[in-house]
């Protein structure tokens, strides 16, 4: 099904949207386009449009790498009605990657490398045909975009400037330490809580990136930018456990951008 040509010229040409039922109360949305970057950017935009428009019956949204699962109240709308509302919303707003929104924050995240913190550093460098130093240099010079919050609010980021794709671990680890900075493909993710992962671990941040005693539990949100900054291991104890906050505007990106302001309006025990 396609949305037909808009009668008025001011309307955008919306990209084709595939809407597939996923059970009686969910609809899987995919933007159809040959360009993967376009699909991912349009997917982010689509999520923003849906969160803004809140089509009737929508309960929640789960972002995938190149898709959105829309969960809805099946007594309020049908799959077809919801798909139509979403197509109308998209026709009105368009999905063209717009100018970066004013609320897009930058996070400069300190990261420590070393034998204990970077078990896959050597592997990843070899796979990319680089020295570990050169690989880290490329990693640090990449400005990453948070595409989505994955399990337990883990920031999943795209845009790592590697010359190739990084493969996953043959045997996923059953437990990866919180703060671990991991890569796969040209994506990066930070492990917020202990748990399993098959991504390659190249470093660890001493900062706490997610803390449910904070409100909200993370300072970052989808669409924000991230840059990693390798710091000496001696910095670990000074930074350990500080809650990650956005780098204030105008602060030089020399590694002093984060602050460890105490905070939290906990109503937790």
């Amino acid at each position: 099904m396609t949305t037909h040509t808009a009668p008025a010229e001011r309307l955008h040409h919306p990209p084709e949207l595939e809407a597939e039922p996923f059970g009686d109360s969910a609809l899987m949305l995919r933007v159809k386009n040959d360009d993967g970057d376009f699909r991912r950017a349009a997917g982010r935009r689509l999520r923003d449009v849906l969160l803004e428009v809140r089509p009737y019956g929508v309960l929640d949204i789960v972002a995938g790498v190149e898709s959105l699962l829309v969960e809805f109240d099946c007594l309020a709308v049908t799959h077809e009605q919801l798909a139509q509302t979403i197509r109308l919303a998209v026709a009105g707003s368009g999905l063209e990657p717009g100018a970066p929104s004013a609320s897009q924050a930058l996070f400069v995240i300190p990261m420590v490398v070393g034998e204990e913190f970077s078990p896959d550093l050597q592997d990843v460098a070899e796979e990319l045909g680089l020295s570990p130093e050169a690989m880290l240099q490329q990693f640090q010079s990449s400005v990453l975009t948070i595409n989505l919050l994955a399990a337990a609010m883990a920031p999943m980021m795209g845009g790592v400037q590697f010359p190739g794709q990084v493969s996953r671990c043959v045997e996923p680890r059953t437990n990866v330490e919180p703060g671990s900075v991991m890569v796969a493909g040209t994506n990066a993710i930070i492990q917020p809580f202990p748990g399993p992962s098959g991504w390659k671990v190249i470093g660890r941040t001493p900062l706490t990136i997610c803390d449910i005693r904070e409100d909200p539990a993370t300072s970052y949100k989808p669409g924000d930018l991230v840059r990693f900054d390798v710091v000496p291991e001696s910095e670990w104890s000074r930074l350990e456990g500080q809650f990650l906050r956005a780098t204030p505007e105008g602060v030089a990106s020399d590694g002093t951008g984060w602050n460890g302001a105490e905070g939290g309006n906990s109503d937790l025990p």
Partner: protein
Amino acid sequence: MTFPEHAISIKVSEAGWLSTFQDLGRENSEFMGVPCGGAADQYSAAVANILVGNSRKAACLEIMGGRFAFTATHDVMCAATGVPAEVTVNGDPVGMWEPLCLPAGARVVIAKASGGMRNYLAFSGELETARFMGSAAPESRMGFPQQLAPGQTLTLHSRYRGFTHPFLTQPLFRLPVPVPNFSPDVWTIDVVDGPETDRTPGIRKLLSSSHYTVGAKSNHVGLRLDGPVVHPEGLGEIVSHGVPIGAFEIPHGDELIILGRSRTLTAGYPIVAVAAKASLSMLGQASPGRKMTFRWISNEQAVEQYREQQRGLVNLEEHVHALFAAVGLPVAASFAAASSPSPAAA
């Protein structure tokens, strides 16, 4: 007559194998990467709250196995729902799925649950508890276990001041409660097509004609079932995408997984069926060893079943509201406005 709220202490002397604060789960959290969580048996949790005049979404307790015992400092009204269990007040057996009016100091024991995993216990009023993203539901991975310990004292803010029937010592409420049937040896769970059903030849016949057994590694993240599976054909790598509650996944091994409310939100496994929404509460009660089979229904039938289930809850709410108003029992302020079905419930 209405009384002001007062604080009541509820001392939990025995906490069962695993008991937690619980509610219907988080709203608007999944787009942030946090699963909705909440009562695995949404129906029983909602009914427990409705039976004591609370909003369906109020915090209650979820009890999984063992013996749970408590004593309250004042008169309280409570209701226990979920799988069949032995409930006693000062040693005398009392019913489940009905409001219980307890005198101050009465010792209540819930034990010997059979046929499934979970019991829900709601109290008239508001239980004091921490919340994460607006919900009392546990999210243990993120450091929010919400577990009750033996000896713990809970605080309840309640407007209930005791109630006795003029002629009988224990009030008899006749309320239209549809109680789920947990007794069959083999549960039949309704399913609708999943995105990969058509690409998995034989899966329809297999799921509807085989018995599956819930494995020991099952939890609120997902049920792992032993039984025959077939793998989809001609599927390339599936890019990680969001997965709905009740999705039937077939990972690389010969295992069937049915995802629960605390699922990891994205996965790259084929989905060969999705449990109908009205069947999710039953799935939430399945314990290791439980045998089940599946019945394919159309999307229209699935929606109609859920509508029927919700209609039952609304009907119960209306009866409770009318009854409590007539006899002067407290109802939650939000309850009066809750006659339209809440999308998040059950």
